[in-house]
């Protein structure tokens, strides 16, 4: 990976003093993950370009187990953009090679340390999964003029569209120390993937390098979150392993996809209204022992737990990762004993019969059915209506008619990439009534969210009552 720093400050070669690297002598440095080389493609008093070239050892990257925290199991370890694209490795190299410049000391030019000088940075390849807009959102608030060129994915296959990798040019007049701090923090944030960190005190480093600018940055939340990226669990690794070779890991982008759906529906806070409606229906049923089937990260469980009416609450989901998050959200290991006895979360599936689910008063099945392939729906119906067979079932699903109202959703697309189908109101009601009749239930229907005269409400809800 390569980064070049150019200045037209006069004399431009002062850059060498600030970086404490002699423009006439190329130098190499051993790093734990490879080598860094500093050289000056050009060094005149008018213009001085310093280049930092980092060679990451691709084999050590994989073999040296203690290094890449958070790396997933799969193939991507060797076939990896880490040696080429700007990432946390670059931050580490900057700190190692330009340490004194980063911390603001210069023996020969101390007065220049805090002096704004014209600087231009070129990063040859920067991954930005948040797209071009995100690059602008990160750098513009800090006063940079930014030029972004998207790299083609593969010119042989133009139908593959563009890559998420960019050539980025930044220009601003500011002290070199500040520029290096910005890069140190923001390059890994852009990357948002598999950080390489050598130390434990990442929070401390973030505070130090972000001093004076991070607190005022409008994107500080996402910067902090991505900089301190969480580790993956064992089960995630196992999942990645299963799908290795053919498909991306199933949940690699689950959080992003959920965010997409969230972003589509956010303008009307549909999720809150949906959970509120489900909660009302559950309360109205008079149930005390309840199930949340497909509880995901536990938002509904949180609401159920607050209601004294519910004496036993079971949350079940097929995603182990989602359950871990639910456990954290509910603070399951810190709940007082009386509360803890009321709630349990289970790993399970709605297409396998599960005797643990039998005998409850009510079940919520919120935004689940549209994630099942239609051929599996028959099993789902039998497991829910015949085996679990709670007295009341509250089930929600998107109303596909409403999709035309979403400004950000392209026509004909589903709201979430994992949706296998979306139903119109007529389709949903026909399914619900047929299923109810066969299983000995009656169904009533309620809109969730703002109801449009033509296309109805964004979410449709059925309340099934056992007869």
């Amino acid at each position, binding site marked *: 990976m390569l980064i070049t720093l150019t200045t037209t400050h006069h004399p431009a070669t002062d850059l060498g003093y600030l970086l404490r690297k002699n423009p006439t002598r190329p130098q190499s440095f051993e790093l734990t993950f490879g080598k860094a080389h500093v050289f000056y*493609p050009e060094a005149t008093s008018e213009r001085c*370009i310093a280049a930092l070239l980092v060679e990451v050892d691709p084999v050590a990257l994989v073999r040296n187990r203690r290094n890449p925290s958070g790396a997933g199991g799969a193939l991507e370890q060797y076939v990896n*953009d880490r040696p*080429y694209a700007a990432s946390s490795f670059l931050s580490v190299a900057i700190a190692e090679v330009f340490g004194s410049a980063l911390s603001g000391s210069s023996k020969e030019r101390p007065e220049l340390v805090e002096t704004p000088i014209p600087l231009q940075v070129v990063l040859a390849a920067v991954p930005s999964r948040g797209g071009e807009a995100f690059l602008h959102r990160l750098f513009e608030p800090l006063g940079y003029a930014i030029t972004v060129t998207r790299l083609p994915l593969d010119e042989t296959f133009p139908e593959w569209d563009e890559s998420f990798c960019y050539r980025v040019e930044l220009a601003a007049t500011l002290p070199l120390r500040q520029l290096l701090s910005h890069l140190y923090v923001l390059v890994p944030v852009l990357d948002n993937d598999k950080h390489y960190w050598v130390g434990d005190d990442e929070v401390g480093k973030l505070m130090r390098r972000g001093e004076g600018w991070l607190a005022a940055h409008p994107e500080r939340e996402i910067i902090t979150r991505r900089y301190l990226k969480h580790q993956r669990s064992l089960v995630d690794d196992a999942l990645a392993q299963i799908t290795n070779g053919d498909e991306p890991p199933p949940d690699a982008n689950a959080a992003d996809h959920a965010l997409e759906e969230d972003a589509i529906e956010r303008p009307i806070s549909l999720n809150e209204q949906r959970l509120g409606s489900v909660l009302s229906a559950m309360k109205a049923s008079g149930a005390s022992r309840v199930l949340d089937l497909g509880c995901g990260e536990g938002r509904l469980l949180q609401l159920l737990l607050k209601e004294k009416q519910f004496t036993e609450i079971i949350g079940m989901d*097929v995603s182990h990762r989602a359950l871990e998050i639910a456990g954290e959200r509910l603070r399951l290991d810190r709940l007082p004993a009386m509360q803890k006895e009321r709630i349990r979360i289970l790993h399970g599936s709605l297409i396998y019969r599960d005797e643990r689910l039998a005998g409850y008063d009510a079940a919520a099945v919120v935004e689940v059915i549209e994630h099942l392939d239609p051929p*599996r729906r028959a099993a789902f119906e039998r497991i829910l209506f015949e085996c679990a067979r709670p007295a009341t079932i509250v089930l929600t699903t998107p109303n596909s008619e409403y999709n035309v109202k979403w400004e950000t959703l392209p026509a004909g697309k589903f709201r979430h990439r994992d949706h296998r189908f979306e139903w119109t109101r007529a389709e949903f009601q026909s399914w619900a009534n047929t299923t109810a009749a066969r299983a000995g239930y009656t169904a009533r229907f309620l809109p969730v969210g703002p109801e449009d005269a033509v296309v109805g409400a964004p979410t449709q809800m059925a309340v099934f009552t056992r007869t």
Partner: protein
Amino acid sequence: MKIIIPELSLVVLVGVSGSGKSTFARRHFKPTEILSSDHCRALVSDDENNQAATGDAFDLLHYIARKRLVAGKLAVVDATNVQAESRKPLVALARECHCLPVAIVLNLPERLAHDRNKNRPDRAFGPHVVRQQAQQLRRSLRNLQREGFRHIHILNTPEEVDAASVGREPLWNNLRHERGPFDIVGDIHGCYDELALLLRALGYAVDETAHTLVPPSGRKLVFLGDLVDRGPKTPDILRLAMNAVASGAALCVPGNHDVKLMRKLRGRDVQINHGLADSLAQLSSESEEFRIRVADFIDDLVSHYVLDEGRLVVAHAGMKQSMQGRGSGAVREFALFGETTGETDEFGLPIRYNWAAEYRGPAMVVYGHTPVPEPEWLNRTINIDTGCVFGGKLTALRYPENEIVSVPALHAYAEPRKPFLPEAASAPSSPSLSAQQQHDDILDLADVTGKRLVSTRLHGNVTIRQENAAAALEVMSRFAANPKWLIHLPPTMSPSETSGVPGLLEHPAEAFAYYRHAGVPRVICEEKHMGSRAIVIVCRDKNAALKTFGITDEGIGICHTRTGRRFFDDPKLETAFLDRVHAAATAAGYWDEFQTTWFCLDCELMPWSAKAQELLKQQYASVGAAASASLAAETSALELAAAHGLDVAELLSRTTGRRQMVADYVAAYRRYCWPVHSVDDYKLAPFHLLATEGKAHTDKPHDWHMETLARLANAAAGGILIATPHRVIDVTDPASEADGIRWWEELTSRGGEGMVVKPLEFIAKGRRGLIQPAVKCRGREYLRIIYGPEYTAPENLARLRSRGLQAKRSLALREFALGIESLERFVRKEPLRRVHEAVFGVLALESEPVDPRL
């Protein structure tokens, strides 16, 4: 005194402290059979005599006793048991586990116990304790029978105790040593003529007037009960059955009708209904002596039998696993009536609890009792009561052939309260799901989660760890196709040992050597196609899909990935694709040749980019894009620096070399990508014909598979199927090996993926069991997309050579064994959960952490 106890019983020792119970127990029972309250007190409190721990100690004792009894193991309770309330939970426990409670009472003089206790420092309680216990014991003696003890043995003197011995006898129902073969006949209900016809059809010699029969050599007849009532010739049936049982030619279990008749004959007050009047009328012309013999015969019948080393259970109304081979009132009730839910249906008949739907036992259960139009298998159980007396037919099951033989009723002798035959007006034999297929619509979580052991024919028990099962559950639930389609998932494959040839990681020489050392002389080399592994199932028509797979409305087949996911998201595309394969099979004459209505292929589906599009874009192409851009920029910066006179020559040359390797890498993945617009753009290369009706073709060598599949490929229109180029190599002949190596060099120099080397036999075993079913040798350029663009740099290659294959090879064998197991279970028509267990196992094993580059 010889004490005889049933081999499975709960033995309750009764006696005061110091009466010698522990000594007695040690003399007559195994240490593991004895559950001592003193020992349990010590286990929970470190003190054998800690009376405060008594409650917990007995909880523990009862817990262990229950575990033993459920597992079919005898248990001896060594505690005083002098109080009725301490014996009561033990009697209840024995009943719950359907085994008999036995009391052995040491009723010795009190003085003896006092003397013994005096010599034991740890028994510091006063004499009043023993006195009180002795009183309680004396009061108990006359109540034991009423409390529910079936066997009571009282030893009154030390001499009797010393002289006693304990013998064990098998239960009456234990005929495990009877190996058959058997002919099992369903409910007869007085249909003597039909029985005679059926027996002759089964090859028995029958003398209808003498009421005798002679079985074909070695066979034995089994009557499933309900010999009597409703039909015209009940006495004839009884004569025949009694003679046959007496001569040893037949076994008989009682039916509820038989038992009711017996009770009536014994003078009990029973309701005369459901055809009992017919039997009584027919028996009224018989002698009193005959009626007494009949009553005795029925009274002596044993509720059910466990036969053939436990592989077969026969009972009139069925027998659930927890009751098989046990004796209790509840077991007898179940054998006669089955279980009912307590509700009644619209005909006023009790609604039966469908025990067979939940049956998970290893033994086959053959039963009758409820008339059904056709005998149907469900979870290794089968009901063969086909309602002869109601005008249906009389049915026998030949065991172990599992062949059904029926004769139609000559008349309808009675009217069933609930019609059991399909109405004649209903659609003429419209295909429908079998009972097993309907049952298989849903699978049980308990059959797949948690730590599991899956037994395989090829490789013993395969362990599935809990976290791997959890990962598989998620993949199976969210992404996999209908489990009814999933009869096989392909195993992973190990590469050959690492080569020492400069510049290479893999080379055929190591693969050949592996098989030579394993004792395999001939191997087959098959070109490795770079696509996605696919399993393709094609049925002759939708009817075959329904009959064989229990699938409705999902087309005539499936093409799924190695994780069980449907290959094509677009159903129209899938249909068009499967239609092509179907047409090829028809043209190649597969349906007749294999006498089949379906087949299952193991294939590679190309292009790789069709399924791996996202992965290619997100990963392979992205790396190429970032690397090309970055290295190009680095090169120009270095060139500029060099032009300005800086000494960067070494770095520049290395960077130029890296740039070339990245270009080679991009060329490598591009080779496996082509755009797909329609079904014509796909290529399918089948390399195993895994299974057809009744057969898993794992007994055929690989050259047979190649030849058979080449015929399929040649018969296919439009070039959608391709035959796999291959060579058979003799690994004991260096010239032949050299040919194989040359061929590999040719393939890989053109950028090919390489080849797969397999023993010529599909399943090869060596000295230490199963041998790798296949080993892959991948080409140098192809490996760039596995080991990264720059893997060929000498400093990288040197380190990559140290790689361990052991975990991968162990995994490959376990997955192979599971994959074959699932196929074999499927072609044997086992319940879906059994097939799914093995399929699920492969998916779970795939989540084991193994170097993914191997």
